[in-house]
């Protein structure tokens, strides 16, 4: 894939020559990468995940768990779907895809502040001043990366959103953040390869000298990033970001919105072998005038893009190996406030998952008649994460060692949501 020098050396090959002792240190788990000979075999079973992140905290009782007639229910009506569940009337296209998706209606969490909720739902851990936990994208790409030795672009991509960082896994697993038009800035150097290598050689020498002075991980992390950057600069795989080249009718199906283009890019990246993509859609912090906002802007945008993505993945045979997770940091109060809005609420809400072999067309758990309480076994961020790991074939016995030697179980020892797999 990468271009080669006249002497036949690719940039990737060149980088592997650069010494830098610390560039060799990897988190303990990366050593489990067994050398699998057959690339086709690898490709066939490689797993991916797409997180549709709803920044601000969407009101799930107006989308996935309606309470028509309840005083808290709001004006939206439920409609039938291709699965054994009902969803909001303003999600007509998703209604045709629900046989692929499961709604977990008994989510019950405790973090109702944006920052804390974002952290908790991304990591499975509550914020702790002494440690930074890795987010979904860092954990899953770290675990799945070995399935695609040919991948030259970053394994954790976020489109149009903030996400949460790699924590103790280190900057090498940080999200690569792009906007939805897929244009990556500053890609072109305009320098002949030979001269670039010579510069890189000098740079690596300076870097390594500094790293060897016991200054800590910030110095060595930088060297890993340089290596990834060089890989990416010369890779034809970068074409996966170019959504503009898709046929017009395809783009139309996803919607002419940032989120639509982001979802289309996610599909292209999965096809290219990227193990984790997060696509962000903000604007769900509806303290005011919530139902008009949902009906007129948020839900149409979500419905179109999410349904096109699900449909495409299914048609291309990718859904079996690709987990989709739809969630925000929390949901919104069943009570409608004085400004016709809903405030932050984490005690009873829904997330939606699908693909990766998880059961579709079902609702897991339920809330009471006005949506203020879960009536069945409550599930948490950890449980969703554990279930996604299971769907992707990642062992729940996997344990990370944080930099201070503390063992950390993957998904914070969450339990698999069994209805998704029976």
């Amino acid at each position, binding site marked *: 894939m990468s271009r080669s020098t006249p002497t036949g050396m690719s940039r990737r090959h060149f980088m592997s020559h650069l010494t830098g002792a610390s560039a060799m240190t990897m988190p303990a788990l990366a050593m489990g990468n067994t050398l699998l000979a057959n690339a086709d075999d690898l490709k066939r079973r490689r797993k991916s995940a797409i997180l549709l992140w709803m920044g601000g905290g969407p009101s799930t009782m107006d989308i996935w768990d309606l309470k028509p007639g309840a005083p808290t229910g709001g004006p939206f009506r439920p409609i039938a779907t291709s699965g054994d569940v009902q969803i909001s009337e303003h999600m007509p296209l998703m209604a045709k895809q629900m046989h692929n998706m499961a709604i977990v209606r008994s989510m019950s969490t405790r973090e109702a*502040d944006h920052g804390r909720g974002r952290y908790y739902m991304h990591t499975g851990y509550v914020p702790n001043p*002494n440690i930074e936990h890795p987010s979904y994208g860092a954990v899953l790409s770290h675990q799945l990366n070995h399935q695609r030795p040919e991948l030259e672009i970053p394994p954790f991509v976020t489109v149009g959103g903030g996400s949460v960082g790699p924590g103790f896994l280190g*900057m090498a697993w940080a999200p690569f953040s792009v906007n939805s038009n897929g244009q990556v800035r*500053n890609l072109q150097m305009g320098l002949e390869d030979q001269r670039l290598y010579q510069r890189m050689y000098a*740079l690596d020498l300076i870097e390594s*000298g500094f790293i060897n002075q016991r200054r800590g991980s*910030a110095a060595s992390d930088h060297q890993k*990033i340089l290596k990834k950057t060089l890989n990416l600069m010369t890779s034809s795989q970068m074409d996966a970001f170019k959504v503009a080249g898709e046929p017009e009718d395809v783009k139309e199906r996803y919607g002419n919105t940032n989120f639509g283009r982001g979802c289309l890019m996610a599909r292209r990246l999965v096809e290219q072998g990227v193990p984790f993509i997060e696509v962000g*859609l903000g604007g769900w912090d509806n303290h005011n005038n919530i139902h008009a906002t949902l009906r007129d802007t948020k839900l149409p945008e979500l419905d179109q893009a999410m349904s096109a993505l699900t449909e495409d993945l299914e048609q291309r045979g990718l859904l079996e190996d690709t987990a989709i997770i739809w969630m925000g940091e929390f949901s919104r109060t069943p009570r409608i406030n004085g400004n016709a809005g809903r405030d932050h609420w984490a005690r009873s809400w829904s997330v939606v998952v699908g693909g990766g072999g998880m059961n579709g067309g079902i609702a897991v758990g339920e809330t009471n008649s006005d949506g203020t309480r879960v009536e069945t076994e409550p599930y948490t961020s950890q449980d969703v994460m554990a279930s996604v790991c299971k769907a992707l074939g990642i062992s729940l016995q996997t344990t990370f060692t944080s930099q201070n030697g503390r063992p950390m179980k993957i998904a914070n020892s969450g339990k698999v949501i069994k209805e998704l797999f029976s």
Partner: protein
Amino acid sequence: MTLSKQIGFVGMKRQLWTFTVLGLLTQMLSFPGDVDAQNEASDYGIQEVAEINRLIRQGWSDYEIRPSAAAPDGEWVRRLYLDILGRVPSVDELREFTKDRSPEKRKALVTTLLYDEEYTEQYANNWTTIWTNVLIGRSGGTERNSLINRPGMQKYLRDSLARNKYYNEMVFDLVTATGSNTPGTENFNGAVNFMTMKLEEKAAQATAKTSRIFLGLQVQCTQCHNHPFNEWKQQKFWEMNAFFRQTRALRRFETGTRNVSHVELVNESFQGEGLTKDPDKADIYYELRNGITKVAYPVFVDGQTINPSGYVEDVVRRNELGKLMMESRYLDKMLANRMWAHFMGYGFTKPIDDMGPHNPATHPELLDYMGQQIRKKNFDLKQLISWIALSESYALSSRSNSSNESLDDPLLGETPKFSRFYMRQMRAEELYESLITATRALEGRGSYEEQEELKSRWLGQFVVAFGNDEGEETTSFNGTIPQALMLFNGDLVKKATSSDKGSFLSELASSELNNTQKINYLFEAAFARKPNMNEVKVANQLLAARKGDLTAALQDIWWAVLNSNEFILNH
């Protein structure tokens, strides 16, 4: 075939850049491997510095750790310029300092950077950037139809910082400001920009951000419920909130049009939210989780009450709040914590603006002491900066030793003990200014406003919003691929490494300096140190590969230097 041959480093017949043995020895001696600070550090005859050193050392002996060695002059002076002026020192500034042999030269340099007129503008600009980001975020005022005027915010801060206005007076201004947000309009008062966009939804953001930024109290959760971890109750949020309810941000239009000309922050009498509308006792209401409605009047965090009248003729609630905040110990402790974190990389609490019994400080006695002392000095920011910048901890190397390597690394989850300097990424603004300093591009820059415009356009590529009503944002700048790409190939670095006529490198190449001096110059400009033997060797290889084209070889070296960890980290 070796790698260096494969990439074309061949046929080098002679050393084109020489490096003396004497130089090498000096180099080795100035970087000792594993030694600790032998002697008590100087306190420069400043009582506060002595006490800070004593309390920090007490922590070291409690944990039985040896601090790292003292940082060499070059490293210390580089971090001082970065932390006070927001840029690396120029080669001239560096050399003037290192050749000075007087024992009090560090104190003299701190005084120069803080008080010499030559640096007033740079000092004010740097701290304006820092405070603007704290008060309105990196994106505040950059969106269309924003109620914030970013240049207005910056103008207020620059004016105040340039004349070293006392911090408590600045806080009072920001909390109580009225007037127009836009420079050049009637009644202009840039301080209003802190609050113009925080008044929606019953001023929830004004309440949360004022408490958080100035008092270190995180109350945002308690808008809707009692806080699960700290002592704040929902009632307290709304009592604090009641101080902001006379305040309104009004759009003013260009005469005869619907185009917004500016925003004016005003205090208006508030009749209360109750059914009876009794402005003499203007009350507000909030809902408990169980749906029960409760009433609240303005009450400060410590329980002090004010006249509950909503009439501005009787009482301007924000002015009363401002006065109460001035007396609060939270104000001085929050300032001490923020400034310590700015210079040291970590504060006494994490996050720095979440203080209280639920989140105990690592050095409570020191935090209390610094807060008290700065209050005694009328909240003079420059004095506080001097104490911290001259403290022993700030002067330690960022290299760890066998004693503190794992025991004092906050990245490993340890609480900071300040037994070494914690390396950190330069902020995006610091990197920008440092690139400009290092390439001597300061001359002939446009006005402050023009520079800010250019800089903010450049910074825009790294700002990522989280999409919620609290306007939270993050940056994709720190140590990521987009940052590396920007330094590899971005316009700013292309300019910095340009070999065009009149550019930094072409001037350096054609200067009277000999080749060794030219290489030294580049390393000193970026790292505040001379190159080592290996680095000189690779410079020679590059010169040979460029077939003796000196400018081209300098270009290659300069590119490598600017892209290195040692350049982008404050160490």
